[in-house]
């Protein structure tokens, strides 16, 4: 009798265990989390009922820090907003200062800036490929991607002196011209990466397991993407050809022929394919820009930067970084420090509103998959 009473008690808890609601932390210390970000998941069994994003682990009060430093002192600081691709931040800040002061940029500097930004895009996408294929369990293409990214960082080190933070784009041009033989080394490095594309395809992109694990996961429709402020590959994977390099061209992007890659379905599988197509398009674009580059100066010297005072005004500048639309709202009151700086970063809507919507009804195993395919970069959200 006692045995059956105990059995009844056990089976009672067993049936309620799977109905019990638990709160799990996909927290900052997690093997699948790239960057210091946390998601609180309310789960029942294996299904997520509600996901809440917790940013704030990397908040430095960036915009307030920039108000306390002069215009020239902000240049080493502004690239640290996003650590994976710091160059688009430099471009956006330099362009906003150029718009307020009216400094002109020579033609060759526009080409060099485009080549530089495209190399940064290739490096950033390779980092994203490392994170994503590691998350899905494909360790080999992850190691290859990180190795190829290191070859691109060698090029950056030769050109600017730093592997990660470059501080290369100034208002008025770029800091220095290409060293001798740099163009040949760029072509050689990109060819050596390009020769491995069939290997990447057969190991990862055309792999049946990748198809099974990523198809239909974290999908959003084009209507939802437009309503929630998506840009970048999250929007291009739903079919819309929205790329700021075409919509509002800057630097030398309107001087070469290139196409915007898109896919139709809006799920994780489509987003990663858009990333792959963008990388290949960037490499072709770099070759065309290197061929078409004119000779000339690379830097228009402006007024003395140590005593610089930017005239009153405000502006909003945007560019296409590797994750989407990166914008800067800059207000100057005529002094030697910025009055208000506000970065519109692409991971802000992706990581806070779209992530919470895409995770409803997902299983716990797909949380990391969705998060990394949306390419949520935590320091950009918190600034």
């Amino acid at each position, binding site marked *: 009798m006692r045995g059956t009473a105990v059995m009844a008690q056990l089976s009672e808890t067993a049936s309620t265990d799977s109905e019990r609601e638990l709160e799990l932390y996909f927290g900052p*210390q997690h093997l699948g989390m790239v960057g210091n970000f946390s998601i609180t998941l309310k789960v029942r069994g294996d299904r997520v009922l509600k996901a809440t994003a917790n940013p704030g682990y*990397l908040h430095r009060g960036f915009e307030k820090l920039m108000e306390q430093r002069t215009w020239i002192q902000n240049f080493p600081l502004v690239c640290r907003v996003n650590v994976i691709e710091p160059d688009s931040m430099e471009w956006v800040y330099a362009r906003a200062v150029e718009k307020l002061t009216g400094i002109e940029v020579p033609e060759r500097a526009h080409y060099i800036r485009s080549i530089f930004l495209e190399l940064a895009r290739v490096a950033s996408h390779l980092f994203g490929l490392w994170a994503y294929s590691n998350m899905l369990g494909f360790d080999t293409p992850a190691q290859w991607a990180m190795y190829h990214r290191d070859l691109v960082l060698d090029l950056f080190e030769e050109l600017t002196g730093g592997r*990660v933070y470059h501080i290369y784009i100034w208002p008025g041009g770029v800091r220095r011209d290409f060293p001798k033989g740099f163009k040949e080394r760029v072509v050689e490095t990109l060819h050596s990466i390009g020769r491995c594309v069939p290997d990447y395809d057969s190991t990862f992109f055309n792999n049946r397991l990748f198809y099974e694990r990523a198809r239909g996961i974290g999908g959003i429709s084009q209507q939802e993407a437009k309503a929630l402020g998506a840009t970048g590959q999250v929007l291009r994977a739903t079919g819309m050809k929205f790329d700021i390099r075409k919509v509002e061209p800057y630097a030398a992007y309107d001087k070469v022929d290139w196409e915007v890659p898109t896919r139709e379905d809006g799920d994780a599988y489509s987003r990663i394919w858009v990333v792959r197509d963008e990388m290949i398009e960037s490499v072709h674009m770099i070759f065309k820009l290197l061929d078409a580059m004119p000779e000339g100066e690379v830097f228009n010297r402006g007024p003395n930067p140590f005593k610089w005072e930017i005239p009153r005004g405000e502006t909003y500048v945007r560019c296409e970084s590797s994750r989407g639309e990166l914008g800067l709202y800059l207000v100057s009151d005529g002094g030697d420090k910025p009055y208000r700086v506000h970065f519109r970063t692409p991971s802000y809507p992706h990581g806070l509103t779209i992530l919470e919507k895409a995770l409803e009804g997902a299983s716990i195993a797909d949380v990391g998959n969705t998060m990394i395919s949306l390419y949520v970069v935590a320091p950009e959200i918190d600034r």
Partner: protein
Amino acid sequence: MDRNQIAKWLKSPAKMANKYSLHAVYFCTGCGIIEIPPVITTRWDAERFGVLPVATPRQGNLFMITGYVSLKTLRAIIRTYEQMPDPKYTVGFGSCPINGGMYWDSYNTIKHLDKYIPVDGWIAGCMPRPEAVFIGVTHLWTLIDKGKADGYLRYKKNYAAYRRNQEMILRDIEWPPLYPVESKAEEVSV
């Protein structure tokens, strides 16, 4: 292997095995994390130094704090550090844990990491190169040999001071003290 190494292995095999298998807890605390994937993948290959990332702090004995530490992150760091088993070593990576670095005047980042958890060594730079990580690891080996990498012993000895600093900066801590903290005699009500 030279005779010196063989003698060391025979004399204290546990210390040598500990030294050559520092398993790092995988926690991306700040912007220094961008140089950790190159360090643990094929080009710079930290595994030939014995350094490997592990999933949970219960399995790790090296904690690299890569980059600046905000207040929310400090909570997570203290909890992670207290979960690691002894002996454990902490390395501050980058200029920001040393004295605040680039964000010395930010209201949300802490300025000196060794006021809150014990730190065995620092690697300076913004970013430090991957070679600097390996130099740091070899220095840590020398410290372990001489018995000077005693952060975890200092934590136990001075726990009252560390806990007081943690409470001063974080204001309310929801986890109990790791080691017993004696209450002062005059606070006991009669």
